[in-house]
């Protein structure tokens, strides 16, 4: 019979969009129906991480994960697992190697190699309830800081931990705090950069949605160490759930006396505001972000003066991103030595990655720094979808680079990745397989940076556009061999002369793809072929007369009239009229259509 226990339903954005909220209603109804509402509670949690198999449910008592759950499965889960203590086998994850269902969460390969520090509450607690956070040692770090430590001691502890900024550049956090603490001024600000905008990245979103108090606590500790009494969380408006959870959390923290005046009787005051961004990627750049909060156009300005000296409203300001702030309570609570044990010599702690693209286990992953790309993609991510061959991994978003197979044993830390021509970035990992064209990928990232350039400095405003145009020409088979040199020269000039990080890193996807996949550029330009068969302008379709049975299915489904023939005789594609949509190849049952 059921005893006091919790059913954790992932209600993060991914699972919510595949029906998690309906599951919660159905579960509540079923629990009530079975008369179990006194003993069983349903918790809508933040992201549990295994987005690929969402919506997911965890039966906390047995640490069982049910995947791809639908409303129709609810009655069985309650009847079997909750009441009879028997697992619903058909909803368990099938292990990719053994092909057997896995009953325990800890035995799932996706989780086994992870080390969840920042994400330790995510997917477990109800992010809308402060007591669930405090029950798991929440705000103890703040109490320790305020009651037992001086601001300098807090600063020293963060310095010793070796924590580096998780926003991408990897600047030592303690050092950054020290600059702001040392800056002259009676009013100082701390800001949380939650303007996560890289395509395929959802780390910060998940932390804010799933464990908002950890960010607030981190900011409180930082503000205490720096001497700030006001803070902003700059969160992109595209994250409504993150903003909602954050606002709820701020209200609860104020009520509980963690925010406001004379916090925990220490004399320390701190107010926290949420500011919703207006949708510009460049506002993730700190000076543009501050301009945006001030109500100005989100454009970066020249540094120095650095924000630590002259930041928001001209006052000393310290900006860190969500994940960085979220690390702070753990460092304070467990000590810098504990933290510094994790990771590599120069990159301490863990890093969260958003694993997306052509990978089996799309999801949210936290690993110790120094884990290799291969471990993340193959051991945790379960390798490439549909048994296709791995081609590349894009790391660091539009500012990062594409790493080929031979670089997979690169350790994921700030220095190794920089050496390899990529960057840790904020944590997006996009997996590409043999069907991905690398020229097209570079073109995609440039189309993104071209749109997101603020337009202030010449190289970024004009240069990203021209790089995009050249790449676009190449994917259409209109490239010239000298285009590769032109691209490389332009890329270097833009990197060296752009004002902010956006322009300085926008050429990285091009330089990395040329470095590792030059042959693909050459194939497009010289042979007018796309080796991945992805660039439609370079494809040609024909019908293998020997394989064609003359069924006419291709002609029937062709949206133009370019396929002709008589029944039971080989059909023919008239190439001039073909729009290269690929319908014929999908419809043919005899593999008779050739795409080249």
């Amino acid at each position, binding site marked *: 019979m059921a005893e006091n226990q919790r059913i954790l339903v992932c209600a993060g954005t991914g699972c919510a969009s595949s029906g998690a909220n309906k599951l919660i209603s159905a579960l509540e109804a079923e629990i009530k129906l079975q008369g179990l509402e006194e003993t069983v509670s349903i918790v809508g949690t933040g992201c549990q991480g295994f987005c690929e198999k969402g919506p997911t449910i965890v039966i906390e008592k047995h640490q069982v994960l049910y995947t791809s759950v639908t409303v129709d499965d609810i009655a069985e889960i309650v009847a079997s697992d909750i009441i009879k203590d028997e697992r619903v086998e058909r909803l368990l994850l099938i292990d990719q190697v053994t092909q057997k269902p896995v009953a325990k969460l800890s035995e799932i390969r996706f989780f086994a190699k992870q080390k969840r520090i920042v994400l330790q509450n995510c997917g477990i607690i109800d992010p809308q309830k402060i007591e669930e956070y405090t029950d798991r040692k929440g705000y103890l770090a703040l109490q320790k800081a305020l009651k037992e430590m001086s601001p300098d001691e807090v600063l020293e502890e963060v310095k010793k931990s070796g924590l580096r900024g998780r926003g991408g550049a990897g600047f030592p956090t303690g050092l950054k705090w020290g600059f702001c603490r040392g800056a002259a001024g009676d009013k100082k600000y701390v800001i949380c950069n939650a303007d996560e905008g890289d395509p395929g990245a959802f780390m910060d979103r998940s932390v804010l949605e799933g464990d908002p108090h950890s960010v607030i606590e981190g900011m409180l500790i930082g503000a205490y160490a720096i001497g700030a009494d006001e803070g902003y969380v700059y969160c992109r408006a595209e994250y409504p759930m993150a903003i909602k959870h954050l606002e709820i959390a701020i209200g609860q923290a104020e009520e509980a006396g963690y925010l406001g005046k004379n916090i925990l009787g220490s004399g320390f005051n701190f107010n926290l505001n949420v500011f919703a961004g207006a949708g510009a990627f460049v506002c993730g750049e700190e000076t543009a972000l501050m301009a945006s909060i001030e109500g100005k156009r989100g454009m970066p300005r020249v540094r120095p003066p650095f924000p630590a000296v002259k930041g928001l409203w001209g006052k000393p300001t310290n900006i860190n991103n969500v994940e960085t702030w979220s690390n702070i309570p753990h460092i304070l609570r467990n000590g810098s030595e504990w933290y510094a044990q994790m990771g590599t010599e120069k990159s301490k702690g863990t890093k969260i990655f958003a694993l997306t693209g052509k990978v089996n286990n799309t999801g949210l992953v936290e690993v110790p720094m120094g884990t290799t790309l291969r471990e993340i993609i193959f051991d945790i991510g379960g390798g490439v979808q549909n048994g296709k061959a791995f081609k590349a991994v894009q790391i660091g978003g539009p500012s990062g680079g594409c790493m080929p197979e031979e670089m997979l044993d690169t350790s994921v830390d700030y220095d190794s990745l920089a050496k390899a021509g990529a960057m840790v970035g904020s944590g997006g990992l996009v997996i590409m397989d043999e069907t991905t064209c690398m020229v097209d990928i570079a073109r995609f990232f440039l189309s993104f940076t071209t749109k997101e350039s603020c*337009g202030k400095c*010449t190289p970024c*405003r*004009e*240069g990203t556009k*021209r790089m995009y145009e050249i790449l676009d020409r190449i994917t259409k088979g209109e490239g010239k061999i000298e285009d590769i040199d032109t691209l490389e020269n332009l890329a270097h000039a833009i990197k060296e*002369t752009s004002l902010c990080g956006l322009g300085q890193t926008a050429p990285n996807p091009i330089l990395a793809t040329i470095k590792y996949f030059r042959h693909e550029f050459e194939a497009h330009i010289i042979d007018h072929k796309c080796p991945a068969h992805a660039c439609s302008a370079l494809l040609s379709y024909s019908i293998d007369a020997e394989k064609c049975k003359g069924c006419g299915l291709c002609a029937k489904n062709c949206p133009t009239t370019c396929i002709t023939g008589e029944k039971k005789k080989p059909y023919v594609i008239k190439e001039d009229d073909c729009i290269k949509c690929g319908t014929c190849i999908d419809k043919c049952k005899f593999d008779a259509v050739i795409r080249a």
Partner: protein
Amino acid sequence: MEWFTLTIDGRQVSVLKGTTVLEACRMNDIPIPTLCHDPELTPAGACRLCVVQIEGMRNLPPSCVTQVAQGMVVETQNPKVRSARKTILELLLANHPLDCMTCQKMGNCSLAEYAYEYGATGELYKGEQRDLPVDDGNPFILRDQNKCISCGKCIKACTEIQGKSILDFSFRGFDTQVGPAFNLPYHESACDFCGSCVSVCPVGALVEKKMIGKGRAWEVTKVQTTCPFCGVGCNFDLNVNDGKVIGVTSNPNAPVNGKALCVKGRFGMDMIYSPNRLTTPLIRKDGVLVPASWDEALDLVATKLGEIKKDYGPNSIAALSCAHCTNEENYLMQKFMRAVIGTNNIDHCART
């Protein structure tokens, strides 16, 4: 005062702490190309044409916003720097109409000057070009956004010198435009047509409309003069071609006003050739205004004022003097009214 010694292109120079690398170069006659820099405006660091190489610094820092440091080693002309500048010029030219033959700015265009120096043609990165409407709705300023290089100087001049803040950037990236709010044309915005924006535009995006077609930069003689419109004493350059004033441009060395002018001073000088302009005193005789000599006119005024004062008293006379006059002239006018006529009935048009 702290002095720093730095090496620029192998030359040792000493400048005050707080000086930018660009200023240090210009003080020492080392040329650096700039498009968005103006000593009267806050620095933007936007055009990136002034990049230099500085030992120990990553990338190529813009000299206009980089402050000098003791022992700094700067290179301003090495191949890497020149190549980066050429790339920036090529990028600007690729999105700029090459109609220099008919452009009013020809001969005075910074972009053309640097393109010539660096051999940039606009061919290298040819692609999409803007095709925006030309703002032709006002009588003073012709605004061709297709020629704009987004240096932002007009925005800063409007905000920082004139205090009007009519202009700002809109849209993003390649689609960035400069203009009044809601993309209104100048004449529908709150613009006063002071023309400060025109005075700082380095290219042909903003030009004095009335000067179009009236003379090339090299044909024009600039004659510094004081504006006759009011007593402030602004200085500007009359642009004279073939003995005729074709317009007015700012003179950055003007002691009172710098580059700032008002709409009358900058755009009102065509009054010189107005057929309505009075060039001699007129006396109404039998209901018709007849030209007269100054002696004749002054005698008449003196006689009449004397008679009125005698018959009706000094307070029957009042004088209104004009803002066209200088302070000294206005002083004389009130002195004349008080001491000669004997009344306090004196006022001034600028007071109303």
